[in-house]
């Protein structure tokens, strides 16, 4: 059985697994479909774990992350790497407490069997000290890496509390892109949406349009981000943007209500709206398929 066949069967039989397919940069509705070609590789995206959060939106916050780690570890085929797209911790004014939360988070995710893990900050991790504490534990806030022909770019749009990438990083991004072929498969990882998803809810990056403009000449660009605590798919031109669910509490659909208050915890369906995703790269990274997973597999 090929990996995709396995996923398709799991999705159909498990019931709790929601699966969606994305081919290239165009979102495609519907469930997983069995395909004949084995994926070149796949990775897992986790986001918005908010370690340290205490509140009614998730009374189970002390164990949700650990359960997600266990679920990832139980994947039949381990991913080649894992990315965390920000808000690893919940914010605090206390620098010592911030570091304690970052350290605890790091200890918990050290239990992931897959040891190639890429991190990036969210505003809860980095905005109050411009990333100082985050860097002590996880290193640089923006960087690139390559994996099997796919160029990954982690963009930091949170260390500036004004949700700006900033001129320096934009220049770095421009210089990095200048080295690439226009057909190169590119995956951008970031925390906030790079487009104006819902500015009234601060769901935007102030200079995100400049990053998108730099990416626009490239034919195969996909952006994965977090911040909005829900799955969302949008195109800016030919560039696809996919937000991830969180692992702490879901937020309402953009603009669906006056305020962006967390959706209430439902004890009858704990973890509803939470989860992580797999991203499978095929055809030398030019086709990406996304599969959503709950915190706990049925």
């Amino acid at each position, binding site marked *: 059985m090929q990996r995709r066949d396995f996923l398709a069967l799991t999705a159909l039989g498990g019931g709790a697994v929601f699966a969606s397919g994305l081919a290239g940069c165009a979102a495609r509705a519907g469930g997983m479909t069995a395909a004949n070609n084995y994926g070149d590789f796949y990775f897992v995206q986790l986001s918005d774990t908010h370690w340290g959060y205490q509140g009614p939106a998730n009374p189970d916050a002390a164990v949700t992350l650990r359960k997600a780690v266990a679920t990832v570890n139980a994947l039949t085929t381990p991913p080649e790497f894992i990315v965390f797209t920000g808000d690893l911790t919940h*914010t605090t004014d206390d620098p010592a407490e911030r570091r304690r939360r970052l350290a605890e988070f790091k200890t918990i995710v050290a239990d992931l069997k897959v040891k190639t893990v890429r991190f990036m900050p969210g505003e809860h991790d980095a905005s109050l000290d411009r990333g100082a504490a985050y860097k002590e534990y996880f290193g640089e806030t923006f960087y690139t890496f390559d994996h099997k022909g796919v160029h990954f770019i982690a963009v930091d749009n949170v260390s500036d*509390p*004004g*949700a700006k990438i900033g001129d320096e990083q934009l220049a770095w991004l421009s210089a990095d892109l200048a080295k690439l072929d226009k057909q190169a498969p590119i995956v951008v990882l970031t925390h906030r949406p790079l487009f*104006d998803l819902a500015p*009234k809810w*601060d769901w935007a990056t*102030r200079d995100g349009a400049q990053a998108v403009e730099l990416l626009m000449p490239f034919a195969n660009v996909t952006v994965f981000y977090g911040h909005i605590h829900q799955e969302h798919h949008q195109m800016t031109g030919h560039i696809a943007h996919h937000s991830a669910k969180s692992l702490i509490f879901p937020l309402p659909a953009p603009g669906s209500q006056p305020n962006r*208050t967390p959706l209430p915890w439902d004890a009858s369906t704990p973890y509803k709206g939470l989860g992580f995703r797999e991203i499978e790269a095929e055809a030398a990274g030019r086709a990406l398929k996304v599969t959503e997973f709950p915190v706990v597999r049925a």
Partner: protein
Amino acid sequence: MTVTHTGRRRALKGVFVLAGAAALVRSGLAQPAAEPRVIEMTAHRFAYEPKEIALRAGERVVVAIRSLDFVHGMNIPDLGMRLDLVPGRVTRLELQPKAPGTIDFVCDNFCGDGHEEMHGRFVVTA
């Protein structure tokens, strides 16, 4: 809804002014228009006070905003404008709403645990 505004910013001895387009038009009139109503507002973690301001359509107002503790943001997407509210300064926002409705604003400088609740709105009546 349309509201008269511009992004023109002038620094006047520590007071930042966002002047409305209405003021520019008014300079060509023979009779000076009435002085705008001044509305005081404070911004602090994690609220604007008042968070809801009643306006009348056509009325010229100046919102004089003082931040008490942080460089809060004030993003008003409906107007395509935003401000940084620097402590120790008074930031003045001139508005002249043309029609009834609501105009939301939100802090867009992350200011801590509660930032997500820092928002407000202008409510414009006929």
